[in-house]
């Protein structure tokens, strides 16, 4: 019997994790399909012909691509439980702005921390900390970026937490020392089942990265 909701994903992807968290938050049952990105399935290529990337959410046979587009879609379809976005337009726009900020600022810089060395790595570490200090400022004294409740911006950012041990080990620095509020926030998020069950263990991500660097000759 065909599943109503299918997720094409790759376990270490922080983008795929966002969708896992979103689905868990709404209590949606779905079929998880692990992709081998070195050997992409015909289904993935058919469902995301433009980017050929995960995550892809397939709902009643129709694909939705791009993780934050998927998260908003999930929020709008299953709108009666745990809304991710505030209801008033200004606060919604505020959340979308910060999710977009995370989208623009975190991934490329973070990647350089484990993927590069020397001067390039130092610049990346500096930018990473600057970005997270800005995020700390936005978080302020709130328990979550969404305010009292876990929401869209929290979902957009928390999945990077599973990569923190990797960044810290390769970059030889402590994120907690620089941004203690972010770590406190992350631990708070991890207390939620939807988050804890969706994020892989940080050490496993590190082992994966070590393997990946060897495999692609990046050492």
């Amino acid at each position: 019997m065909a599943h109503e909701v299918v997720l094409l994903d790759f376990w270490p992807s922080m983008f795929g994790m966002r969708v896992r968290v979103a689905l868990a938050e709404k209590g949606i049952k779905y079929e998880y399909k692990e992709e081998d990105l070195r050997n992409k399935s015909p289904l993935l290529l058919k469902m995301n012909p433009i980017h050929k990337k995960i995550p892809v959410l397939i709902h009643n046979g129709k694909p939705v691509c791009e993780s934050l587009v998927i998260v908003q879609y999930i929020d709008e379809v299953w709108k009666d439980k745990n809304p991710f976005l505030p209801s008033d337009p200004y606060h919604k726009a505020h959340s979308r702005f910060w999710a977009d900020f995370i989208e623009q600022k975190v991934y490329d810089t973070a990647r350089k921390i484990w993927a590069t060395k020397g001067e390039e790595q130092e610049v990346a570490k500096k930018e990473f900390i600057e970005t997270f200090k800005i995020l700390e400022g936005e978080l302020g004294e709130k328990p979550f970026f969404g305010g009292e409740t876990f929401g869209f911006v929290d979902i957009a950012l928390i999945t990077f937490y599973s990569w923190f041990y990797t960044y810290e080990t390769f970059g030889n620095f402590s994120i907690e020392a620089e941004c203690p509020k972010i770590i406190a926030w992350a631990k708070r998020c991890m207390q939620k089942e939807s988050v804890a069950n969706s994020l892989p263990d940080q050490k496993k991500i590190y082992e994966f990265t070590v393997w990946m660097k060897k495999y692609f000759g990046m050492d």
Partner: protein
Amino acid sequence: MASSATVTANQLIIMAELKLFRTWSSPFPLRVVWALDFKGIQYDTIFEDLSNKSSLLLQYNPIYKKVPVLVHNGKPLLESLVILEYIDETWKQTPLLPEDPYERATARFWAKFGDDKVLPSIWNVFIKQGKDQEEAIVTAQENLGFVERQLTGKKFFNGETIGFVDLAFGWLAKLLSLWEEVCGVTLIDHEKFPLLSEWIQNFADAPIIKESWPPRDKLITKYQALLEVYTSKEAPK
């Protein structure tokens, strides 16, 4: 749904204070101009000189220090596509996004594709030379091919009328031919991209859109100067 000709008391209150920070040439604030004009919303315009940014702009957008910024009753909205969604949710006439969540997701996907892939790939064609430019042309045309197919059976990306994705791609309708002229490369022609060519014509000449374009000669001068900066950087020393 209120007709665009009727202004209700509610709308008067909402319209109370609306300011748009823009430059004369940047295509991103133009999206906001189009959205507001389509909905018949009154607003004040503040033109910025990005080489000498106003303290107000820096106060409203300290992170990016860019335009557009839309200030509504003293509260700033940033990032053009985020602003478009805000406008659509605040003023319900002439909706830009469809109601159906799947169609909304599709619209958001295409707007993102435009900004993340199409625009940078075309910009690369404009600023690069030689082999780099040849490679850039291949990527750009591949991206434009996807866009072309998205128009199958439709006049606009939104269907019969202009919508969110059309506004997101609006820069293409004017700047593509301009950049092609300045750098001497033709990226799209009527034979290979018939639907896109039609869309460009229909969009550029649509009411409201037509009146909004910055002066063409001024744009040509600006991009010629910009191209010179890039070519002099690449020139062998």
